C-alpha cells in the first residue's frame, strides 16, 4: 500500500496548481457572468502539452496516467469548473473513445488534433428522448453509395462548437429485432451538420453546451468507430472513464468551496468572535474536510485501478456518485457559512453551488450510478 504520488504526478500537480491559481482562477467570476468560453486558457494548456495527457506519444499525447488526468481535472475545476468540465469532456469523452476503438489511421487523423489542442474533443450520445436510457437513441445512419447518411439530433453536447469532429451514436440497422447502435466519427463542418449554442444554463456558464442537428449528413464508411453494432458497449466503457473525470471535478469544486468557507469563517466575526469558533460552524467545516478527503481517495482509487488495467466500473461509479454528492453538500454549506454574502456572486461560493449541480446529472445521474453499483454488487 502506498498513498504517495509518483515524482511525475507530484510535478504535474504542482505545475497545474500554479497554472490554475495564476491563469485560470482570476477570470472565473467574469467568465461566468459574461458566459465567455476560456479559449485562451485552452491555447495555453495546448502549449503545455496537457490536451493529450493520457494518449500515446505517437499521436502527440504525453502518455501520462489516469491519476494524473484526475489531478489536472481537479485542479482546473478548483479554479473554474467550466474549464474543468471542458477539459474532462475533451479527454475522457472526446479523445478516449478514439484512442480505445479507433484504427491507427483514424487516430492519426482525429486523435492527433485533439492531443495538440487544435480541436477540442466531444462526444454525442444524449438525445432529447434518450438521456439516462441512452440505448433509446433515435438518430439513424442509413447506407447509400458506400456512405452513411445520418439523420437525427443530439442535446446537451459539451465542446461541440470547438470540435472539428466528434463521435455520435446512431442506429445502423436491426439485429434480431434489436436496434444495432454504432458510433460514427463526423466532422462538424460536414454539410447538413448544425451546432447550436443557445442553452441558458444554471451553471458552468463558461463551458460550451450544444444541440446538434444532423440532416442527411454523409460520411464515408471508414468513419465507423470500432465495430459495427458495438456503439452501446463502447459508450458504456467510455463513460466508465468519464466518471473518474466527473469525480475529480467534484473534488476540485468542493475543495474550492471548503477553502473559501474556512477562510471566511476565520475572518468573519459575529457575537464577538470568529464564526470558526462556533461549534456549529466547526462541525460543518470538519465534515467538509473529511468528505473531500474521502472523495479524493476514491477518485484516485478508481483512477489507479484503471491504470493497472483492472476492472474499475464499480469504483468509477462510486467515486462519481460519492464525490458529486459531497460536492453538492459542501458547496451548499459553503454558501450557508457565508450567510447573506454567500448568496452574492462576488463571493464565488454560489457559483460553485450552481456549477456543482451538473455533477449529479451528467455522465449518468446519481440514480443511474446507484443502478450501476447495484448491478455490480449482484442485485
Amino acid at each position, binding site marked *: 500500500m502506498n498513498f504517495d504520488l509518483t515524482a511525475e504526478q507530484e510535478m504535474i500537480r504542482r*505545475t497545474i496548481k500554479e497554472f490554475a491559481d495564476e491563469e485560470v482562477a482570476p477570470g472565473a467570476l467574469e467568465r461566468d457572468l459574461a458566459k465567455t468560453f476560456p479559449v485562451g486558457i485552452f491555447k495555453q494548456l495546448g502549449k503545455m502539452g496537457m490536451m493529450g495527457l493520457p494518449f500515446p506519444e505517437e499521436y502527440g499525447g504525453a502518455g501520462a496516467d489516469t491519476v494524473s488526468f484526475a489531478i489536472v481535472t481537479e485542479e482546473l475545476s478548483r479554479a473554474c469548473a467550466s474549464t474543468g468540465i471542458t477539459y474532462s469532456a475533451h479527454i475522457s469523452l472526446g479523445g478516449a473513445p478514439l484512442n480505445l476503438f479507433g484504427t491507427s489511421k483514424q487516430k492519426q487523423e482525429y486523435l492527433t488534433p485533439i492531443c495538440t489542442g487544435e480541436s477540442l474533443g466531444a462526444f454525442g450520445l444524449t438525445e432529447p428522448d434518450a438521456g439516462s436510457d441512452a440505448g433509446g437513441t433515435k438518430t439513424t445512419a442509413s447506407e447509400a453509395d458506400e456512405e452513411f447518411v445520418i439523420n437525427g439530433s443530439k442535446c446537451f453536447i459539451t465542446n461541440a462548437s470547438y470540435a472539428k469532429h466528434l463521435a455520435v451514436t446512431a442506429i445502423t440497422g436491426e439485429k434480431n429485432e434489436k436496434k444495432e447502435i454504432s458510433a460514427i466519427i463526423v466532422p462538424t463542418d460536414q454539410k447538413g451538420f448544425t451546432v447550436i449554442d443557445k442553452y441558458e444554463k444554471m451553471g458552468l456558464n463558461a463551458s460550451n453546451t450544444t444541440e446538434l442537428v444532423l440532416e442527411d449528413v454523409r460520411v464515408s464508411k471508414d468513419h465507423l468507430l470500432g465495430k459495427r453494432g458495438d456503439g452501446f458497449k463502447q459508450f458504456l466503457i467510455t463513460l466508465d472513464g468519464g466518471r473518474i473525470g466527473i469525480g475529480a471535478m467534484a473534488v476540485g469544486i468542493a475543495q474550492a468551496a471548503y477553502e473559501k468557507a474556512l477562510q471566511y469563517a476565520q475572518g468573519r466575526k459575529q457575537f464577538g468572535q470568529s464564526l470558526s469558533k462556533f461549534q456549529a460552524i466547526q462541525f460543518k467545516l470538519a465534515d467538509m474536510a473529511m468528505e473531500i478527503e474521502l472523495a479524493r481517495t476514491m477518485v484516485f482509487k478508481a483512477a489507479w485501478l484503471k491504470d493497472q488495467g483492472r476492472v474499475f466500473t464499480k469504483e468509477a461509479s462510486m467515486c462519481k456518485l460519492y464525490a458529486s454528492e459531497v460536492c453538492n453538500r459542501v458547496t451548499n454549506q459553503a454558501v450557508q457559512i457565508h450567510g447573506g454574502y454567500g448568496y452574492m456572486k462576488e463571493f464565488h461560493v454560489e457559483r460553485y453551488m450552481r456549477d456543482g449541480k451538473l455533477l449529479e446529472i451528467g455522465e449518468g445521474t446519481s440514480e443511474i450510478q446507484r443502478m450501476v453499483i447495484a448491478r455490480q454488487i449482484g442485485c
Partner: protein
Amino acid sequence: MNIFVLLKRTFDTEEKIVISNGSIVEDGAEFIINPYDEYAVEEAIQIRDSQGGEVTVVSVGGEEAEKQLRTALAMGADKAVLINIEDDIENGDQFTTSKILAEFLQGKEADLILAGNVAIDGGSGQVGPRVADLLDIPYITTITNITVDGTSVKIVRDVEGDSETIEAALPLLVTAQQGLNEPRYPSLPGIMKAKKKPLEELELDDLDLDEDDVEAKTKTIEIFLPPKKEAGKVLEGELDVQVKELVSLLHSEAKVI
C-alpha cells in the same frame, strides 16, 4: 555554449511558515525552486535555444532537492547535478555553498553561469559573486536583460530601480533579477521526460573537499518570525496636532527614535 545554473531549493515564503525549536518545520511546508533561480533557469534555456549548447543545473543541498532539479529538467534544462551535503555538513552558510560550487565548477569550462540575485530564505545575495570570485571570472548582479553575441555579452542590470547597460565578455557569471523573463510552466511532455534526463549525485568526497575546507564562517544564533502585524492607526485632527502625535508615538510606542 556551456551554461550552468546555480539553483537552490527553498521553502515557499508565500505559504505559512512554522518555527519550532529554533528551526523551520519542514513537514507540511511547501518547497520550491528559489524564484530568482527560476528566472536564471528560464534565461539559460532561452540562451541555449538561440545559441546552441547545453544547460546544466547544479544544486547544493539534500536528497530532497532532486525534486527542484527535476522541475528544472522538466522546464528544459539538459542535465542536473546534486551535490548532496546532507551527511557531511550540519550548518553551512554562503561560504560553504560557494566554496563547494566553485570546486565543482573548476575545470568545467563554463561559458556562462547564471544564479539568482538572492535566495528568498537566506537573502544574502552572496553565493553568485563569491563563486565568480573563487573562479576568478567577472560577475554582474541583478540583471534584467542579457544578449549574447559570440563571446561578447550585453547586459542591462537593475540599480535600485534605475537601469545600467554593461558590456562584458564570456566567461561570465550573472545573477537574475525579477523582470528578466517570465519563467515557463514545465510542459507535460517535459515532465514525463525529466526522469530520463541525467541527474548526477556527488558528495564532498567526490570534489576532494573535507568538511573543514567548507566550514561555515557564520553562526546562526536564533531564528524567529517577524512580529505579527498589528492593526494600523490612523491619526486625525489638525495637521500640527497629527505631527506632534506622530513624533510622540515614534518615541514612546514604536521606539524608533
